[in-house]
């Protein structure tokens, strides 16, 4: 009990969001017998992975005081390129994955250069990038394209015993980025830049390089999400990434990261991602229209953020 209190005192917002997650979970367990199956829970986790990966990048961007609106289009582009070039050829899998991941990095570097060196506000730079990328992918294909190999589909759909491989992959990625943010100089500097850019600059932190790194990471993770979705669906859909930018921001905000930057972290985003996945899953099981999911998510965001503000 005392341990719980200490966690609460150190970070009330984080404590609160995990309470909500538990509450949703308990509610779901009572509301639907199907929910209680191991199969469903793992399925839910598998669904969470796509948002989970891009959400990590979005968290990093928002922590630095920025935002990345280009992730949705980038995901679509990467998914289409992956399956569009592969067309069932197993020897191409590794070169293609390396190729599309470097596209993600390149897009991120471009965003970062615009924001850090040309001083374009992040909202505008990444919004414009989003338009460019979405246009490009629709020029490339207007309908779902190509196909992936069976082996490649293991990434998103494979199992390690009862556990989805994708979930294990996500957990590994989370651990990596938790380490990056909490234990490395770059991580600390991301918080510092988001907290107060001027103080960071006067403390000798290379603010522009930090921003460049942030958007590069976000671009890389969005590309990884695109690869994941190509693997999951087996085909590249030019609109598959639509909505991921806002959904990932939603998860970050539910997780208690401040839109102003410098405050919050991956720990909260995990809960945010899981809450969204839970809401989607349980409403599906209860046969509620998909549109209600939007309404519920909106209410959750408003509620949670209002409570955070109150706590401050």
């Amino acid at each position, binding site marked *: 009990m005392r341990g719980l209190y200490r966690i609460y005192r150190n970070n009330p917002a984080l404590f609160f969001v995990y309470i909500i997650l538990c509450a949703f979970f308990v509610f779901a367990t009572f509301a639907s017998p199907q929910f209680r199956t191991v199969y469903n829970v793992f399925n839910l986790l598998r669904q969470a992975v796509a948002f989970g990966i891009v959400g990590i990048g979005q968290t990093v961007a928002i922590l630095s005081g920025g935002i990345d609106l280009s992730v949705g289009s980038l995901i679509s582009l990467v998914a289409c390129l992956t399956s569009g070039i592969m067309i069932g050829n197993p020897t191409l899998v590794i070169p293609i994955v390396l190729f599309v991941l470097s596209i993600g990095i390149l897009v991120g570097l471009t965003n970062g250069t615009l924001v850090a060196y040309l001083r374009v506000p992040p909202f505008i730079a990444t919004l414009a990038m989003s338009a460019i990328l979405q246009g490009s992918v629709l020029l490339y294909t207007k309908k779902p394209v190509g196909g992936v190999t069976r082996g490649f589909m293991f990434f998103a759909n494979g199992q390690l015993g009862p556990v989805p491989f994708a979930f294990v992959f996500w957990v590994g990625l989370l651990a990596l980025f938790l380490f990056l943010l909490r*234990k*490395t*100089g*770059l991580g*600390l*500097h991301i*918080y*510092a830049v988001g*907290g*107060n850019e001027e*103080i*960071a600059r*006067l*403390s*000798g*932190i290379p603010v522009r390089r930090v921003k460049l790194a942030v958007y590069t990471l976000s671009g890389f993770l969005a590309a990884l999400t695109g690869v994941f979705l190509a693997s999951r669906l087996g085909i590249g859909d030019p609109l598959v990434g639509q909505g991921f930018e806002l959904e990932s921001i939603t998860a970050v905000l539910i997780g208690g990261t401040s839109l102003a930057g*410098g*405050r919050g972290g991956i720990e909260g985003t995990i809960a945010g991602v899981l809450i969204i996945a839970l809401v989607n899953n349980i409403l599906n099981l209860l046969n509620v229209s998909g549109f209600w999911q939007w309404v519920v998510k909106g209410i959750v965001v408003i509620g949670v953020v209002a409570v955070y503000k109150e706590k401050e």
Partner: protein
Amino acid sequence: MSEMLRMVNISKHFPGVKALDRVTFSVNRGEVHALVGENGAGKSTLMKILAGALQPDEGEIFLEGERVSIPNPQSAWAKGISIIYQELNLLPDLNVVQNIFLGREPRGRLGTLKYSAMVKEAESLLERVGIRVPLQALVRSLSVAEQQQVEIAKALSLNAKILVMDEPTASLSETEVERLFAIIRDLKGKGVTVIYISHRLDEVFRIADRVTVLKDGRCVGTYPIGELDREKLVRLMVGRSFSETFPPKAQETGPVILEVRNLTVPGVLKNVTFCVRAGEIVGFFGLVGSGRTDLAKALFGLYPHYSGEILVKGKRVNVVSPQKAVAEGIGFVPEDRKSEGLCLGLSVRDNCLMAVLDDVRSLMFLDRRKETAIVQRLVTDLRIKTPHFYQRVRNLSGGNQQKVVLAKWLATQPDFLIFDEPTRGIDVGAKAEIYHLMRDLARQGKGILMISSELPEILGMSDRIYVMHEGAIVKEFGQGEPVDEERVMYFAAGLHVGRWKA
């Protein structure tokens, strides 16, 4: 004692102001050197130049006899110069250790932080200063005094040889001040040179070895503390001749327009009681932190949870919001016109009409002819120099911007106007014009409350003067009562309380 620092013939201009005029300033190794002067005397500017945050227009800096240039803050640190500003430069969402080493964290391979090494060094630093703060606590959760101590530790981690403190006691309690002084004496014992900026003269006498007085951007002189007493120091700080020309004062005044009884805002204002009559200009003087601006804000509805009474023309009113204040006929020309007085990106016309949009409306729509008539009248009356009404306010001079703020309030036809620092940052000619406009308004029967940190302005403009100190009115100088700068400063500095100890 050897000379540690010498700044020679330092000059610095800002648009319209000569902030420093060939100031020479010398500090000995291991002394506590106080830098005093009125608001705007140039203390902070001089120290910002030393810290590399500003560049001088001319002049030279010698450190331990060697000529140096200090192009940026990092370069100042490298030379052992650290400055602790009044607004502390810490990141509230990082912890104490992270803040102390920010930007200079010891790192291992792969860029990982050597956190335990940081903790160990932070511990020994804090111990060296005799400071106890929880290392893992977020800076947000610390008191101002503790945050200041963290800044001192940070300065020491940079091997500071010269530590500048800008008004360090402004928001500390009595015991916290004692603690700070103990730390300063200890630093001095360890050979650190401390430059101490303060307007609290009693503290200067307690902690300083020598004092340098600045006035109007010039150096008055440097004195060993033993050669001074408080009266002499005040005289050095304020003694000057009147250079501005002020309009003649009120001949007669009308009935009371605004009466305030026991106005209290916890932690900000204490039992403030005063009145303002029609036709008079009442001056409020106080140093930073005396509550002078808070008083204006309270009267304008920005502290809705006040206690006490505010009466406008004898009628008790509840001023709980600016809307309410405007409705009661109160106008407020704020201290910082750029952030609080104007929408810089909008036109002269829009700014003038900002507070009266409801009055120029017919049904739902704004009546452009009525609007134009109002703007025309204001621009002519106040002699606002603008090529046309659609000029963006951003492009006007400081004096004309201030007139637009005033125009905005005159459009509401107020009975009572509050001016907070009405002539800050505007040139001399425009100052005189603003003074005359204020006097004209008084003559038309409006009540005017003027807050200022410039003593000549207070003495030259006010029919009566109230002096504030630590949230309370400590002295009223009535109409015709003899008053001079030294007497006003004496009360504003709190010297009458007898807090001063030799």
